[in-house]
């Protein structure tokens, strides 16, 4: 009988223990938890400014990086997210139309570039169309993948076909593309200039002709199901002005149009 009670108590403790990791990152015990879902391309910038935000707002910021589309799907499935920052404006607008997000704001722009290992011979779109070049792109559902297809569609059809035929992998987010290039597995890929900057010289960014460059604008909003809507809103506001906006600028993002 006593043993049964002990066993039950242990079970209860185990269950209660699941939620007890608040202090793991040094946030003070009464800090409010803020869950931020952001596009992979902002990883370095937001990680560098999150501690400042935590201190200023007495918050415990949980950053979750993935492809913007995966994050949007999580919000649709009811994930408790307080701020959503995507690598395009289409996904936040879609969530807004579905009443799942507040009116999105445009907070940054990025430059769509061709990337290749720093010592690579590749330095133009023509080189990428050469037969046998291993090209890594984003899958169609992730913003970088749709920007890539949008951009390639502006090329002469033969060149577009040649490049698409060279695609060896459709990665679920930009980190996957960059990883394949820095590992020397892929010869070239289409990413944002900020991703190239973040590799610290391992990759080089090759500017595309202006007519090929899609307008890359980042949008953010607060999910209507947010647990901390006010704090979420101040994080989103901070993307346009404040330490996080500065961190984005430092990483190579442009300011919103």
């Amino acid at each position, binding site marked *: 009988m006593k*043993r*049964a009670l002990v066993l*039950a108590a242990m079970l209860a403790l185990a269950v209660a223990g699941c939620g007890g990791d608040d202090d793991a990152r040094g946030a003070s015990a009464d800090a409010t938890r803020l869950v931020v879902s952001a596009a992979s391309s902002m990883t370095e910038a937001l990680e560098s400014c999150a501690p400042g935000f935590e201190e200023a707002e007495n918050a415990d910021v949980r950053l979750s990086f993935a*492809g913007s589309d995966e994050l949007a799907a999580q919000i649709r499935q009811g994930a408790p997210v307080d701020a959503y920052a995507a690598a395009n404006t289409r996904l936040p607008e879609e969530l807004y139309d579905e009443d799942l997000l507040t009116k999105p704001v445009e907070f940054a722009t990025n430059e769509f570039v061709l990337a290749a290992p720093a010592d690579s011979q590749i330095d133009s779109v023509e080189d990428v169309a050469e037969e046998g070049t*291993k090209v890594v792109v984003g899958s169609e559902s992730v913003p970088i993948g749709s920007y890539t297809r949008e951009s390639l569609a502006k090329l002469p059809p033969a060149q577009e076909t040649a490049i698409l035929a060279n695609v*060896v992998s459709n990665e*679920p987010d930009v980190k996957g593309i960059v990883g*394949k290039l820095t590992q020397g*597995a892929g010869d070239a890929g289409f990413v944002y200039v900020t991703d190239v900057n973040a590799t610290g010289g391992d990759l080089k960014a090759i500017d595309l002709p202006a007519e090929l460059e899609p307008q890359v604008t980042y949008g953010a909003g607060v999910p209507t199901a947010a647990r901390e809507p006010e704090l979420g809103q101040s994080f989103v506001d901070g993307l346009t002005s404040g330490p996080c906006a500065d961190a984005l600028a430092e990483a190579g993002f442009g300011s919103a149009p």
Partner: protein
Amino acid sequence: MRRFALLLALSLAVTLTFLTLPIVAIFLDSSPAELVRSLGEPGALDALWLSLRTTAISIAIILLVGTPAAYLLATRSFRGRALIVTLIELPLVLPPAVAGIALLAAVGPSGILGGSVESAGIQLTFATAGVVVALTFVASPFYIRQAIAAFASVDRVLLDASRTLGASESRGFLRVMIPVALPGLAAGTALAVGRALGEFGATLMFAGSFEGITQTVPLAIYDRFSTEFDAALALSAVLVAVSAAILLSVKLVQGGRALSGWQVE
């Protein structure tokens, strides 16, 4: 003591609900018509076919190389044996992402053996062969571990008897050890098949994701998760069905053997 029995029953109920509810939800959330329609799209069939092919090849490799290796480890004792077993079991507890990084570091284009692999004319990254390597790496410990246990539990009297009757060790291995250990070997195979079919992280990181070449069912599910949730559900349902069929067939084989008195007590 009745309270204790109650506690036991409650624990079982909690366990059962927790483990089956998500799987039941996959089927409740997708109608059979939806399932058939989603499978009709070429990408889904490509992914299924690729998964079955790569799993079959890697299981063949695992059985062919792993069975004699497991036999050796089960029947000989030598210095460093425990260390070898531990090293073989290590991938079992490795996170898939670590497996992916490890494979890149070893046989990726800029890995320590990358140059020799390339000069041998073998392409692994972005190639189906790379998927097979990833599956074999993560799945083989599941089989070998089980196979060692299966061989070790065979009564040595049987093998000794075959030797006294003039059979060579290789003959004893093929004609005595393997048949007697078969239920255990089958269980190990099933675990390895399950792990190989479900492999995700190592494949994505090491081999990439391309329809028909490297995009296995789990990668196809992830690719559809954001834009076509129904299609992702349908593919998941198929994977559950295939995995359940494998598990069931092994249980049947083992049950059949046990009933006909094949198992050595």
